[in-house]
């Protein structure tokens, strides 16, 4: 029974991470009808921010190093939120009302982010900065007649291409100077984050069962954050605006709610939550560029299962997913109930790997959607599309 309990705790903490990530995704999906396939990569960025913060604080040692994790949490939220807002303002906004295209474009972004993390070096940062500056300056100081010419949009493309090529040249020349410039910061390898001492070990015990600090911390963290999100959505001014736009965009716009800003803020918060989830993942395992992909499909499943725009559904669905996967996938049922009948035993054994537990859970979800196509807690209201 101890084993089952500890697996339950494992499942809860994985579910908590899923919950954080899926909540961000669900808010954005509910508001804009947009699926952000780069969401997993935002988690990855959050994890890398944690790694960077850890490395900054490591030489300080003592109390400063012990408290780095709190700062990493805040930093990962802020950095990914900024990434999210930039993505929304530059790309998502142009694709408004075309959800499938948005899905493809965000997948493109996620590929770029993965490769960026793998190969980012000082040379590359300099090159990108040069490209951005040059591109901006070329547009800015373009003579007015050219700006108003009928071929202005094509000219713009040409100018950006030129800026990009100059950037590539800058990258290759600076990279050839020395290893200081060309060394990738992170590389494709997996990196490890050491949790601070107060998170390692156990936090007391209940009825003889030890409570691992990291797991409990993640569960508490996610509970607090979800409470904060609920408070924000129901009590704060911007939260009310977000809910208004979610319910009826045109009407809100007519009533003077700045829907553009609402979109940006929501996207920022959603991405920020993904960043915090990424920060939490660093406690559970190592950090790699492909980290996002392994969580993103589960996040989608949580949303589909829970019903869009419903926090309670998201909470229940993510906990269910986490617990089922960890209890069945680890095969602890076999150990906990050694004397189960043979036929049942062979079935449980068949699914007692991580891969096969995914198979089981996803089949279960697809079957569930046959009975409730809109999830456990569907959005109420009338529309043609429903």
């Amino acid at each position, binding site marked *: 029974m101890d084993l089952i309990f500890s697996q339950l705790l494992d499942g809860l903490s994985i579910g908590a991470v899923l919950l954080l990530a899926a909540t961000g995704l669900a808010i954005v*999906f509910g508001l804009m*009808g947009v*699926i952000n396939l780069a969401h997993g990569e935002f988690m990855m960025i959050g994890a890398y921010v944690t790694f960077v913060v850890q490395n900054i604080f490591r030489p300080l040692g003592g109390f400063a190093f012990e408290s780095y994790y709190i700062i990493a949490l805040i930093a990962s939220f802020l950095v990914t939120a900024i990434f999210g807002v930039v993505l929304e303002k530059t*790309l998502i906004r*142009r*694709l408004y009302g075309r*959800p*499938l*295209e*948005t*899905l*493809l*474009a965000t*997948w*493109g*972004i*996620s*590929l*770029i982010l*993965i*490769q*960026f993390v*793998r*190969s980012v070096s000082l040379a590359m940062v300099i090159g990108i900065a040069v490209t951005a500056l040059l591109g901006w300056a070329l547009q800015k100081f373009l003579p007015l007649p050219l700006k108003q010419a*009928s*071929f202005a*949009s*094509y000219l713009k*493309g040409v100018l950006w291409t030129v800026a990009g090529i100059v950037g590539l040249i800058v990258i290759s020349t600076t990279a050839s100077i020395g290893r200081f410039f060309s060394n990738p910061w992170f590389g494709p390898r997996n990196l490890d984050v050491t949790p601070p001492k107060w998170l390692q070990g156990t936090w007391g015990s209940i009825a003889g069962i030890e409570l691992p600090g990291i797991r409990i911390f993640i569960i508490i963290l996610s509970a607090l954050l979800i409470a904060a999100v609920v408070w924000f959505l129901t009590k704060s001014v911007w939260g009310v605006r977000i809910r208004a736009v979610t319910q009826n965009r045109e009407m809100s716009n007519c009533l003077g709610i700045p829907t553009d800003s609402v979109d940006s803020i929501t996207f920022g918060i959603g991405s920020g939550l993904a960043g915090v989830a990424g920060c939490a993942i660093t406690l559970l395992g190592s950090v790699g560029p492909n980290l996002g*992909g392994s969580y993103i*499909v589960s996040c*989608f*499943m949580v*949303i*589909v299962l829970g019903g869009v725009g419903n926090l309670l559904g998201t909470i229940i669905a993510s906990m269910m997913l986490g617990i089922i996967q960890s209890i069945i996938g680890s095969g602890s049922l076999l150990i906990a109930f050694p004397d189960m009948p043979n036929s049942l035993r062979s079935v449980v054994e068949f699914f007692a*790997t991580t*891969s*096969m537990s*995914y*198979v089981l859970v*996803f*089949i279960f*979800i*697809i079957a569930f*959607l*046959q009975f409730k*196509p809109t999830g456990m807690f569907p959005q109420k209201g009338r529309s*043609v*599309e429903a």
Partner: protein
Amino acid sequence: MKLFKRLVPWILLAFAFFILPAMANSELFGFSQFRLNLFGRYFSLAFVALGVDLIWGYTGLLSLGQGIFFSLGGYAIAMHLLLVTKNDFTTGANGLPKFFENYGVDNLPFFWEPFWSFPVSIIAVFIVPSVIAGFVGYLIFRNRIKGVYFSIITQASLMVFYHFFNGQQKLVNGTNGLKTSTTEIFGLVAGSDEAQVLFFRITLILLPFAYLLCKYLTSGRFGDSLVAIRDDEPRLRFSGFNPTPFKVIVFVVAGGLAGISGALYTVQSGIVSPQFMSISMSIEMVIWVAVGGRGTLVGPIIGAVLVNYLRSLVSEALPEAWLFVQGALFVFVVVLMPDGIYGWFTKGGFTSMLAAFGIAKKTATYPKLDFDESVQEESFKV
């Protein structure tokens, strides 16, 4: 001129069919057997792109699960080849494919049995994916799941199959997949140059048939219904149509095409593995269509060949850059070139660019769209 336009694809096809293998044989212009094999792979990917175009370009359903059907076709042909080949590389001591030895399997799993027969395997290449597509499609479309939900569900189904094939070493060799390059077909070793030229030619012979099938489906009433589903499904339903059978049929056809594509790709790449069912592979299939031009039938073929050729070029020159290029391609095509290359040329993008530079005459509609009242009203309704 019109006749010439109609002949161009056939000339290109004949060129690829007769001249390219000869060029590869004599290493003309640096064109090698290796390149020929790569082009064979690209053309085999055009089949799956055609299928994606049917469901996405024409019907407006973005399936992210075509990899399932693609790999099933590949597994079907690979299983047959592994069973019938008897040589030291592929056959283990107990007369079964060699990998079974590693896991101590002595009896052939039951679902391998039908693949002893060549005709059954060839039929299975497209029937198995079609049946599974029909089943999955019926379950999804019955519930009116569409839009982004459809994409997510198909992706989840993809993950089900991926994890299943990945986790079942004793049945299908798990992560390692099935290697076909050492097997024998028509008395040739599948990895040899002669066999590869043969596969290349088979691919080129089949491609026009796939194209004509899609052409047949998309012209006429059936095709109109598909476009109607894409553009305004509720309206179609209100006018008394049931869109579900249309969607299921088109999904089945797309699945069958993906299966053929997977089989052709597998024999030419020499391996089928669960990697074909990775999330990225299925999304890439969509981008080939988007680059080529969705809603057209030439577009997907162009897109599949072009994007994959670009992929080879970039990965050979600078392996790290490919993901950047691919990501940028996704964003660029979606934001700036929604009609794709072929659509850009045929739907007036090219002429409007020329017009912008003052080379071609501007085409104007009459009455001008900006001032036509009925058009203005239309846009308000939407």
